[in-house]
Structures are given as structure tokens and as C-alpha cells.
């Protein structure tokens, strides 16, 4: 997979092409939500979308790989847009963390395609975020989150920008591990559960 970007790649220009692009992406997500990425074929997608193979290859030259990349990029972008909207609504540290963690986890654990990938091919996702592959993901996600955390770093910290970035990385790690392997202790659908977790384990890290 390519580098993680928090901005979306634009579809082909023109309203008909854009609508077709959208249909194909939606169809790809539906197929992946049924059987995961590995078992989804171009034929599955064109059947679901009601377009020809030629149309798909015109919109996504390179076929399945390019399509999956584009769909992934779009979902990642959507994730950050929704999260940013949520974060903007909170000025206090606890509210920010509870809303941010809760929203992020709900998005990920309720995402049909992501759930299917985790069910059908759990190793796939794990291998994309394991060991040295985690680095670029942490960098991109932390760059997004750090500015929101910066106002809440303790005022006497010698390197507050670094602190914000490093805490952002911590939060990204937390979200990732809970998205991949849900915990009985943290229920994304229960704000009280999230709040207890944030208060006990995450706020102290932010203010350390």
C-alpha cells in the first residue's frame, strides 16, 4: 500500500466520470465488506457496480490494486475529516480525549469493510501496521492529532511541540490496538467506559 495521506485523491473529472468513479468505489467497499480484500476480484466489483471491466480499468488503470488503494485513501480521508469535526467541538482536555478516542474507535470498529478484513484475513491488516510499517502511519496520524493536543500540554514543559506530537503518537497507538483487537475494558459504544479509560490511563499521560 502507498503512504498514508490525510487528503483524498480526486476522481476523474466530469460529472459522468465522477458518478461512475463513485459507483465503482462504493461497489468495491460492498464487496470487501462481504469477503475481505484478498477474495474480492475485479469481476465481483464490476458485477456489483453494474459497469464493464473496460470502464473500471479506465477509471482505475492498474485494476484491483489501484482501486483498493483509492478506496482505502478515501476511507482514511473520511476518518480524519469526521474526527476533526468531533475534536473541534471540545475545548477541555478530557472532553477532547473522550470524544476523539470514542469517535475514532466507533468509526473503525463499525466500518463494515474493515470488520470484514479483520474477520477474513486478520494477518493482512496486522502486517501493514507491524514493526517498521507502523512508523509512517504514526507520523501521518500524529501530525493530524498533535495540534489539537498542543494547548493541553502542561505550560512548564520544556519542549511542548515535541510533547504534543509524542502524546499524539501514543493516542494513535491506543486507537490502533483497540481497533485491531477490541478489549473488554474499553467499549467504544459506551461513553462512560471511554471516559473511565481516558481519565485513568490517557489524561495522566497527557499531563505527565
Amino acid at each position, binding site marked *: 500500500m502507498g503512504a498514508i495521506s490525510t487528503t483524498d485523491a480526486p476522481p476523474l473529472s466530469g460529472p459522468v466520470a465522477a458518478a461512475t468513479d463513485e459507483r465503482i468505489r462504493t461497489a468495491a467497499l460492498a464487496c470487501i465488506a462481504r469477503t475481505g480484500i484478498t477474495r474480492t476480484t475485479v469481476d465481483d466489483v464490476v458485477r456489483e457496480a453494474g459497469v464493464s471491466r473496460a470502464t473500471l480499468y479506465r477509471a482505475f488503470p492498474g485494476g484491483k490494486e489501484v482501486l483498493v488503494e483509492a478506496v482505502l485513501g478515501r476511507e482514511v480521508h473520511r476518518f480524519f475529516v469526521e474526527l476533526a469535526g468531533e475534536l473541534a467541538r471540545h475545548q477541555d482536555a478530557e472532553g477532547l480525549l473522550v470524544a476523539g478516542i470514542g469517535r475514532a474507535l466507533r468509526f473503525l470498529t463499525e466500518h463494515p469493510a474493515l470488520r470484514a478484513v479483520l474477520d477474513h484475513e*486478520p*494477518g*493482512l491488516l*496486522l*502486517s501493514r501496521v*507491524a*514493526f*517498521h*510499517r*507502523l*512508523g509512517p502511519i*504514526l507520523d501521518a496520524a500524529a501530525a493530524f492529532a498533535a495540534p489539537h493536543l498542543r494547548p493541553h500540554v502542561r505550560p512548564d514543559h520544556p519542549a511542548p511541540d515535541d510533547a504534543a*506530537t*509524542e502524546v499524539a*503518537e*501514543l493516542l494513535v*497507538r*491506543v486507537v*490502533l*490496538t*483497540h481497533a485491531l*483487537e477490541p*478489549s*473488554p*475494558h474499553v467499549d467504544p459504544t459506551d461513553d462512560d467506559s471511554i471516559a473511565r*479509560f481516558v*481519565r*485513568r*490511563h*490517557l*489524561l*495522566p*499521560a497527557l499531563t*505527565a
Partner: protein
Amino acid sequence: MTRRTALSARVLDATFAEVAEHGLAALTVEAVAVRAGSSRATLYRHFPGGRDELVARTIEREVEQFFAAVLADAPPPEAGLLDHVAGLVVAAHRLLEEHAVLQRLLADEADAIVPSLSTIQPLVASGLTAHLVRALDDAATRGELVDDVDTAMAADHASRLLLSYVGSAGRWDLTDPDAARRLVRDRLLAGVVANR
């Protein structure tokens, strides 16, 4: 040791050696049998799941041994929770870096270990979490923790973060015991260990 367990040990040794020498993709039951001084028939009798079972059992054993080595290297929990967990972090990071076979697989056959990763991860996590629950309970009786810590939740959290940082240290220098101690105090066990 019974003959059966002696054979199993020899077979797992042979599997590990085959992977170390030829990689995972090239592994065959035949090659393992030859190396273990046994036959395919015998192997399938003891490991009916064939190649997949050989790989899974070898990995399980490797994880157990890795865990034991990490524990042996770190100060015991009685020495203090922070020092113990920081010791786990430093030891695990070092031993992971030094694990030649794992590093080569990650470099050359990252996609081949994909199926194995999803079995290793929960294994490691549950073992580590169980250990940390015991360490936290002990620390609680020694008065090292703040009041009302849910040690199961704290162990789960610390375990997840420990595995995350050890696997990919980010901006932390985990060869530095002081840095590891700060990581444990301010991140893994933040809000759990009492300030003294």
C-alpha cells in the same frame, strides 16, 4: 522426556533450522523430516496439520522461549514495578532486534509471515497481560500503586502499549534504560503508579 516429546522437540528444532536456512516459503514437511532424522509418515502422525501445524507449533515455542529470555533479563517484579516493566521493554526490544531469523523474515518474506502474525499476536498479548496482572497485584500490595486501580484494565493497557513500542519504538530510544523507565512511568503506567 518421553520419546514422543523428544521427537517433537527435534522436529520443532528442525523446522526452525530449515526456516533459518531457507526461509519460510521454501519450507517442506519432507525437508523437516530429513533434518529431524524421521519420515514424512511419522511427522504427519505427530503433526496431522502438516506444514501449517509445524510452523504454528514452532512459533509457539519460539514465543515461549522469547518470553522466558525477556523475563530472565529484567529485574524481578519485587524490585519495583517501574524497574521491572522498564526492564521488560529494554530486553524485549534488544532481543527482537537480535532475533536473526525474525529480522530476515521481516526483510525478505514479510507477506509470508502474515498468517502467522495473527496467531502470534494474541498469544503474546495474553501471556504478557497475565504476567502484568500478577506484577500489578503484587505492586498494589507493596503500596506502589494509586488507590482503586483496576489491575486487569491496567495490565491490558500496559501490555498493548508495551508490544506497540517494542515492535516500533517511534521517537523513543529503547536501548536507554532511563528512557525506557520514563516511557513506562509516563505512558504505559501513567495514572497507575503512585508518585513518591
